[in-house]
């Protein structure tokens, strides 16, 4: 398939997506729109973790920390100064945080950038480590970030968190960032750098022997993954309009890990599918926990069952179908034509 045709198909799909979003904004109730928003943000987060883990083979459990950084930086930049003054009832906010301000696009970018810088900083000591150790070390960093944010009250308002964050993150912005994330990462992975990352994932020693500077490649991949995690955190902050250090815990990283594992490692399509499926599933599973009223009968819901079912699903996938739903396949226009050609042959 020629490049021009692919570009045309991509633009058509983009157009259809825009039309759908415009329709959804005007016709679906707020709850469904919120789910659509969550899907976009979760897709960004899933893809960013997949870059680090599925494509480069680095088992990082620190995503919640990067999200926290992105969320706080972005929130501090879009909160109006009057709100900040009023909100910091424990210790007044210090300069320059009291006066910093930026438009939404810049603030999200800044959130991602600061997260990426920290990602690089973290990468230096921990990337030398192998699989399991890397996981715990990155988890450790995420926890350290959380503890620091809880304690530096003049900057982050400590445990009280930030509330009343302007809700700029609507369908338009979220999906814009989502498409941007895909574009950047897909382009990255289809380039030579992408091959480098896959080589490192499959056999780091061999890659080194081929002369690849594995440390540099891993650090860059880690930083980019951290960048988009920061972006995702910033968007989520503006979506929920209130953030506090407690919400950036290990459970959050675990959720993103689920998107990636369920969808399938090493496949962007997989991450998207995983994000969509799990986000919808999480909402749909509320049924299990709520009391179902039929007439005057009440079937009591079992609180907490949602997460139990959630963990069972993860266990099932990892034990029975390790490759996830998509199984590592990647969607591309070429594969579609191949499908049609094959059908044509018959």
């Amino acid at each position, binding site marked *: 398939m020629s490049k021009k045709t692919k570009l045309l198909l991509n633009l058509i799909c983009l157009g259809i997506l825009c039309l759908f979003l415009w329709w959804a904004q005007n016709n679906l*109730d*707020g*709850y469904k729109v*919120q789910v659509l928003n969550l899907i976009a943000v979760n897709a960004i987060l899933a893809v960013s973790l997949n870059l680090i883990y599925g494509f480069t083979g680095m088992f990082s459990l620190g995503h919640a920390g990067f999200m926290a950084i992105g969320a706080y930086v972005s929130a501090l930049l879009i909160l109006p100064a009057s709100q900040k003054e*009023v*909100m910091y*009832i*424990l210790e007044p906010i210090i300069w320059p945080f009291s006066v910093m301000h930026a438009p939404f696009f810049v603030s999200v970018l800044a959130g991602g950038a600061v997260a990426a810088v920290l990602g690089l900083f973290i990468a230096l000591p921990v990337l030398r480590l192998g699989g399991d150790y890397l996981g715990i070390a990155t988890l450790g960093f995420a926890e350290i970030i959380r*503890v620091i944010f*809880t*304690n530096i*009250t003049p900057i982050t308002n*400590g*445990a*009280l*968190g930030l*509330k*009343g964050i302007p809700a700029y993150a609507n369908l338009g912005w979220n999906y814009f960032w989502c498409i941007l994330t895909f574009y950047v990462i897909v382009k990255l992975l289809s380039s030579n750098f992408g091959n480098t990352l896959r080589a490192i994932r499959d056999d780091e020693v061999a890659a080194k022997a081929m002369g690849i500077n594995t440390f540099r490649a891993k650090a860059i991949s880690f930083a980019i993954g951290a960048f988009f995690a920061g972006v995702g955190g910033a968007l989520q902050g503006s979506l*929920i*309009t*209130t953030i*506090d*250090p*407690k*919400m950036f815990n290990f459970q959050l990283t675990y959720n993103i890990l689920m998107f990636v594992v369920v969808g399938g490692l090493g496949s962007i399509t997989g991450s998207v599918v995983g994000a969509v499926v799990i986000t919808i599933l999480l909402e749909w599973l509320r049924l299990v*926990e*709520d*009391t179902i009223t039929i007439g005057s009968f009440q079937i009591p*819901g079992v*609180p*907490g069952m949602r997460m139990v079912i959630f963990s069972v699903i993860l266990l099932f996938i990892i034990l029975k179908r390790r490759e996830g739903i998509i199984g590592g396949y990647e969607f591309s226009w070429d594969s579609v034509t191949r499908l049609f050609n094959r059908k044509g042959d018959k």
Partner: protein
Amino acid sequence: MKFGKKFALAFGLVLAMAGAAMAAGTVKIGVYLPITGGNAVGGGLELAGVQLANKQIPTVLGKKVQIIVVDNKSDKVEAANAVKRLIEKEKVNAIVGTYGSSLAMAGGEVAEKAGVPMVGTSCTNPLVTQGKKYVFRVCFIDPFQGAGAAAFATQKLHAKKAACLIEVTEDYSVGLSSFFERAFKKDGGKIVAKLNYQKGDQDFTAQLTQIIAKKPDVLYIPANFAEGAIIMRQARELGAKFKILGGDAMDNPEMVKIGGKSVEGFSFTTFAYAPEMPNMNPTQKAFTANWKKANGKKLPNALAACGYDAYSIIIDAIKRANSDSPKKIAAALAATKNFPGVTGITTINKTHDAEKSIGIMQIKNGKRIFLTVVNPK
């Protein structure tokens, strides 16, 4: 059509009409509370209060009142989602909730945007109603609670030096202690130590040893009942002799079970209701009696009373507004004056908070006794 089928059709039609009639004639009150998660204890107690109120007052303006309960799982994102669902899917006229100020803040943002009135039960952080038109609460706010505790410390406990042990990860704890500090200093007291711990910590010996060395007259712990009980236990094990004072999150009978003898003499501020209080007014007597009838041996407590009051005040507002439109309910709520609540006579002030008395309770001989009431100025 055979007779059987005709009958079924007719029956179905009747049911449908009845259903439609019911739906048209119901007032829906959404309830979002933490039924699971860290705040489940408080949420469960408040829910029981709301359910009792719904049983006592099942109709208003000739329509049936239906409560729709959604669990916010003690999580902010879930709280926002829960309120969204109640408003968008269930189309409630008003909302009751919630225990836990950070949850109330998250849910309140959603309610405010949608223009549906929300009445907080026991969320005491001032930020919950700040700047909002549609968010109210039936409880006092922490600046008042902290000041009440400080007043009790200086006047009744004759304390000149105080120490604070704060759960730094919990906004309730951090906020309440800072209000206590400010009021205590204003009353001429001195804060000799201020130490932190984190959620889930079980070992406070290092901090307590420090505090003991500074020789305070009173230790203020705005903690949750479980941690608070352990703090007191460890404090007594380390030989601390000073009095210990706490906030409304300590109001739970389990505290005595976990803390045993070490909670003897502990006092705490709470909402002005307890089943053991002397001099109950008629509303409180009725509530206590009805509760015992519905729940048998389980004792009512202040949180259940808050839940009860939140529901009743909405019903009262609907009556005064003579309408169940969310906007009119909100206007009526804002104009509430001297409503006879179980937790005290309630007037909603300009910032949509209730100016009510604080109750001070103490543990004596393993039993909770109601000491006194501190009134708003």
